């Protein structure tokens, strides 16, 4: 087995999701190569070379890889694909964008959102918002798959000594170009990497009220998330969304505030270790998955939680 893992990065930093994908790769075999496609991405390649389990890092450095445009990255991956039995990418926005393109060009199926490796050709993946798990076997020569980060622990980021090799860029397809981005600025941890997450739903009432959650988040070093209802209502940006079609998270502690618990939301957080639900509707389905439920008005309970955390801190 020889496995190619597409690195997720922003030309400066290797994103954590890559480390989870490397763990999935290691369950397939030990010959693991990482592809870093970007512009001025040398630091990312160096970081990838230090991940335990990685044998080789391929770097394709060209202006048309700077923004991970799917047309260009997919063509590059296809140019390298012949040497590999498996091609993996994290099931992130970038991986989901590019990898199906790779699969189609190779005339193979893609296995999306793998949560378990059963063998080199058999994998488990969630369907129907995670209400059902399908075990699927691939009949294709090259297995192309995206990996759900929460299902695999992160590989150790340092201590390895992989070789770094430059590979030739494929010509710019010339059909797409990056225009701009509006990234949410935050000093809090990223949702998919946070140990604690506090999420708000429609019950928050408006975007301003999310400040209540942010205050608690800062005391717990937590990330702030949201249900689809809160995002659709414009309370918070799209990248806050946890659920079937948003981000899938599995922190140690997930605090759902004013979230009823639609199956589409549960799909994104039900693998959290400990779930707390705070909702004034005691019939809310979120209580069926919560380890600790508090039936209360969030506008009373959250400020109180904030004060309790202060006391906890003061008491050491």
């Amino acid at each position, binding site marked *: 087995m020889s496995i190619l893992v597409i690195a997720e990065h922003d030309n400066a930093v290797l994103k954590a999701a890559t480390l989870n994908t490397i763990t999935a790769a290691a369950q397939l075999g030990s010959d693991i190569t990482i592809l870093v496609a970007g512009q001025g991405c040398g630091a990312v390649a160096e970081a990838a070379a230090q991940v335990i389990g990685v044998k080789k890092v391929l770097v394709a450095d060209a202006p048309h890889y700077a923004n991970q445009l*799917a047309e260009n990255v997919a063509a590059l991956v296809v140019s390298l694909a012949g040497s590999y039995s498996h091609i993996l990418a994290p099931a992130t926005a970038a991986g989901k964008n590019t990898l199906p393109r790779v*699969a189609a060009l190779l005339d193979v199926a893609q*296995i999306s959102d793998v949560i378990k490796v059963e063998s080199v050709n058999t994998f488990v993946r969630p369907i129907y918002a995670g209400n059902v*798990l399908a*075990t699927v076997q691939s009949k294709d020569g090259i297995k192309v798959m995206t990996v759900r980060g929460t299902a695999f622990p992160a590989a150790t980021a340092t201590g390895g000594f992989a070789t770094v090799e430059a590979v030739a860029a494929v010509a710019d397809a010339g059909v797409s170009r990056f225009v701009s981005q509006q990234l949410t600025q935050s000093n809090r941890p990223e949702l998919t990497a946070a140990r604690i997450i506090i999420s708000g739903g429609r019950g928050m009432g408006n975007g301003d009220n999310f400040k209540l959650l942010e205050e608690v988040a800062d005391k717990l070093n937590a990330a702030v998330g949201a249900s689809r209802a809160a995002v659709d209502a414009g309370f918070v940006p799209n990248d806050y969304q946890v659920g079937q079609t948003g981000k899938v998270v599995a922190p140690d502690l997930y605090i759902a505030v004013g979230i009823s618990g639609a199956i589409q939301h549960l799909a994104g957080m039900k693998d959290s270790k400990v779930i707390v639900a705070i909702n004034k509707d005691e019939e809310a389905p979120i209580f069926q998955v919560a380890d600790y439920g508090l039936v209360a008005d969030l506008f009373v309970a959250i400020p109180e939680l904030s004060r309790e955390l202060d006391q906890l801190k003061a008491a050491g």
Partner: protein
Amino acid sequence: MKILVAVKRVVDYNVKVRAKADGSGVETANVKMSMNPFDEIAIEEAVRLQEAGKAKEIVAVSLGVAACQDTLRTALAMGADRGILVETDVELQPLAVAKLLKAVVDQEQPDLIILGKQAIDDDANQTGQMLAALLGWAQGTFASRIEIGAGEINVTREVDGGLETIAIKLPAVVTSDLRLNEPRFVKLPNIMKAKKKPLAVLKPAELGVDVAPRLVTLKVQEPPKRQAGIKVDTVAILVDKLRNEAHVI
């Protein structure tokens, strides 16, 4: 501009899906079926472009069993001009769907194809990207905003860190995310009108596409159920439990 929209018939999003006892699939007998919600958004976007005078014709395509005609009629009632059903009883996986759609595109020659970013049954999130690859076209996936320009479109995409805007050359493939628009409710007169709109039926063999599945589903099962925990009466008790029982804060 001619727009082609793909629509999928799926188990309605409100249905609690269950695995069959023998693990061969999910229960779909006597279950409500609807248009995939992301595809409703795709149709809505096409209709809005037509209403804004930017699109001439909208062709809706569905692939699957004969009952997909219902899904196509919904698309026609929302405003699509005509429908094409590629009819087959074979389980269609994303690569096969992309190949069939490519064959339809070769005949129809649209300038823009809009699809839902994923179907809520198999949650694959692949078809649009695969179709773009097979056509050699640009793709704008997970779109929350589309602006039509001269020979290209600007697509604002929902990405992990926020939003990203790219410019892609036409013809192109766009996949819709949740915030692209809010689909309209279909009015009764439009349902009646939709019954008279043309709907063609094709077979995969006529399109020269091999639709044999590449992935074999060995079994389908429900994940272990999470047990409901306890209710606590006060915030103070909650904090105490989280600290001294669950050890997470």
